[in-house]
């Protein structure tokens, strides 16, 4: 098979179009550079009626939104989930990892939870606090200007709270709490748990003329046709194009390797066009990897050459290592006071209106690092699964479980909107032995060697999950709610989600000053190849008890500014 070369030479070839790739494309194109974005999935625009799911009713789907073809249901805007047809991954025996991949322009930003939290000063230097993991080579002050710019460019709501490790930003005002969230506030305060308005990249107020304002359908996971929430296409790539940016989109193109020359410098990328299954090459002065932490690590490890025998950027053997996902555990409870609700539209924004950032000192807790608490519940739109075990809550109020007819109808209405759920999302310790590597025996349908995951939780994470469960119960009791089922036991790891399940995987190409123990420098530039950058969550040294997207974007902006500067100075 002949490899076909594209004639055009780009200033930058960006792999992936999600939070990291999209941000880099925006910054580089705004600076006048010629940019190629290579995306493994099709084109997607939240505005396109052909693919839209926002505001659809459950009966428009014959399966009423069930998860047959999309893991989070028919209307969730992610093409690809834990499984992608023809693109497997494997796990080492006795280990677990779930890997979510969205194959579409904008990647996972089309359906993500929009929780947009800055990492705080402590999060960059946590080894100084507890001696575990490593410090980042940068501090909050290095990233702060980018968080500030990001807030204004993309927009998020939140509130100034002056909390020590939860930096404030340029916020739009948050929406008022829903009813079950008022109960949560009451319970959390009584239990001594901090609770504040949530911080989501959803526009409660206009930030420019091009994007709309939230109309409160509660469906950000379906991607907003008014561009009132953040997704990489609507907020970064399309605006950059409209701004005159020279961006060529290569959709349905699956990058196999970064190509290098005799000096070991990158010359571009090699990809398979999924439509004709032929291999092509694109040339670029700079290669920017934003394919997601694990996909970028895979590309690097698969990019072996005489100059880079262990894979590109992998002389340290650190690529793929220090992989870590957020911890997660959850519990539901029934609020008897919320039986027989008067119904009204409380869809609100797509996500919680209130949350709890980490509020404790770990000194006496027996586990390191914290977690935040997310809240859900209310009178949400029925879809497949609604009404399952509809009368079970009778157990808590002395009614009869089971039945049929009028009694059953009454049960459905009596209990509608009376359940609340809490989820903890915490920080795991990044460990050298937790990794993804190339499976020596398995290729995907394009002949590209696939990832094999080797990841185990430690007692640090299990004990954190235990603490989450105990806290949930305390909050539930304080708000007059009855926890459902039993608290997950020690044997069940206290309900700790499987690695990867929280979809915050980071750390596979971590940054550092020492090329022996890190993959990139503090500008996310490979130690081993000066014209290759990683702008997804790979360079994260640690995850923090926050969601990673806002930091991916701030850091991608910072790295991209550096690329512009270095190209100008002809250093790369």
């Amino acid at each position, binding site marked *: 098979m002949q490899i076909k070369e594209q004639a055009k030479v780009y200033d930058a070839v960006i792999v992936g179009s999600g939070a990291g790739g999209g941000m880099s494309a925006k910054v580089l194109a705004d600076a006048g550079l010629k940019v190629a974005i290579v995306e493994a999935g099709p084109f997607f625009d939240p505005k396109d009626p052909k693919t839209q799911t926002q505001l659809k009713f459950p009966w428009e789907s014959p399966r009423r939104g069930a998860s047959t073809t999309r893991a989070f249901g028919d209307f969730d805007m992610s093409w690809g989930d834990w499984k992608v047809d023809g693109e497997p991954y494997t796990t080492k025996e006795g280990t677990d990892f779930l890997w979510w991949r969205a194959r579409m322009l904008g990647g996972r930003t089309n359906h993500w939870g929009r929780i947009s939290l800055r990492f705080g000063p402590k999060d960059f230097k946590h080894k100084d606090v507890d001696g575990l993991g490593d410090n980042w080579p940068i501090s909050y002050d290095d990233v702060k200007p980018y968080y500030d710019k990001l807030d204004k460019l993309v927009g998020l709501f939140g509130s100034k709270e002056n909390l020590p490790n939860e930096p404030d930003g340029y916020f739009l005002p948050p929406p008022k709490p829903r009813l079950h969230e008022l109960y949560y506030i009451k319970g959390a305060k009584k239990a001594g748990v901090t609770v504040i308005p949530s911080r989501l990249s959803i526009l409660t107020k206009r930030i420019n003329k091009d994007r709309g304002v939230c109309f409160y359908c509660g469906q950000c996971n379906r991607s907003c046709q008014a561009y009132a929430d953040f997704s990489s296409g609507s907020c970064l790539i399309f605006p950059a194009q409209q701004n005159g940016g020279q961006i060529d989109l290569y959709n349905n193109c699956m990058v196999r390797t970064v190509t290098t020359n005799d000096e070991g410098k990158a010359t571009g990328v090699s990809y398979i066009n999924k439509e004709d299954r032929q291999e092509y090459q694109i040339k670029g002065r700079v290669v920017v990897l934003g394919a997601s932490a694990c996909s970028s690590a895979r590309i690097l490890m698969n990019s072996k050459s005489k100059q880079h025998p262990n894979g590109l950027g992998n002389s340290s053997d650190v690529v793929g290592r220090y992989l870590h996902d957020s911890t997660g555990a959850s519990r539901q409870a029934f609020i008897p006071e919320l039986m027989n609700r008067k119904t009204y539209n409380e869809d609100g924004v797509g996500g919680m209106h209130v949350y709890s950032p980490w509020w404790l000192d770990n000194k006496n807790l027996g586990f390191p690092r914290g977690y935040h608490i997310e809240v859900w519940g209310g009178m949400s739109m029925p*879809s*497949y699964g609604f009404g399952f075990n509809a009368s079970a809550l009778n157990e808590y109020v002395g009614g009869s479980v089971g039945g049929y007819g009028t009694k059953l109808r009454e049960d459905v209405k009596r209990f509608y909107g009376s359940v609340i759920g809490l989820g903890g999302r915490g920080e795991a310790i990044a460990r050298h032995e937790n990794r993804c590597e190339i499976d020596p025996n398995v290729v995907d349908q394009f002949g590209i060697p696939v990832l094999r995951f080797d990841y185990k939780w430690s007692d640090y994470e299990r004990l954190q999950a235990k603490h989450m469960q105990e806290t949930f119960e305390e909050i539930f009791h304080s708000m007059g709610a009855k926890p459902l089922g039993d608290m997950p036991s020690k044997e069940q790891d206290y309900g700790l989600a499987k690695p990867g399940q929280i979809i915050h995987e980071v750390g596979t190409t971590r940054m550092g000053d020492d090329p022996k123990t890190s993959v990139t420098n503090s500008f996310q530039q490979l130690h081993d190849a000066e014209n290759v950058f990683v702008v997804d969550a790979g360079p994260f040294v640690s995850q923090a008890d926050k969601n990673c997207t806002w930091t991916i974007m701030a850091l991608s902006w910072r790295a991209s500014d550096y690329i512009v500067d270095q190209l100008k100075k002809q250093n790369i």
Partner: protein
Amino acid sequence: MDRRDTLKTLLVGTVGGATLGTIGCKTESKEPVKSNTPTTGDYGRTPSEKDWDEKVFADTFLNEQELESIAVLCDIILPPTPTAGSATEAKVPEFIEFIVKDLPSHQVPLRGGLMWLNTESNKRFNKVFKDASSAQQIEIIEDIAYPDPEGKKPEMGPGISFFDRMRNLTLTGYYTTRMGFDDLGYKGNSPNVWDGVPDEVLKDLDVAYDPEWTAKCIDQSKRETIAEWDNDGNLIN
């Protein structure tokens, strides 16, 4: 709501459904398959999802007799009321016909459960379930409509499991229709401006907003004004 946790909505009950199913894949046929069952409208499918839907619509699993029995059961579970239609009026049997093909894990329990029901009905009344009188049908249903944690009716166990599944599918099929939305009183899925819980609801429950909290919240009369901040991050408009 955290999208991951929507999967665990045993009782909150919205998106997804935790039922294990097969992952959609491309069918071999590229020609549109004709089906007696009308497909629903466009709901944002990818090409491979369209293929999957067509294949499922073209398949047959439940036979006519089984569907007749299901219709009887559906209307026992949700008969009409003065203000709302019955499960069959909401076309719940049609939904069940589809979903057992889409999520094959329902197939054996439903088919086997219907057989169990007919055997039980034959034993008691010498008639299959759907041909039994209403009173006879209810006599059996009364024996399988409630959980039996103490095992007092061990011979009813399979029927109880089956009826539980039928009830789940009937409720889900019903409350995901317009008729079901109206019965439930669901008011959402339409553009609006959220400005807090209605006053009368707060009063009824003796719950109140904390003025310090609401002072931070959006003034909806200014939602269309383009945001500006001072250098300390304070919104000035």
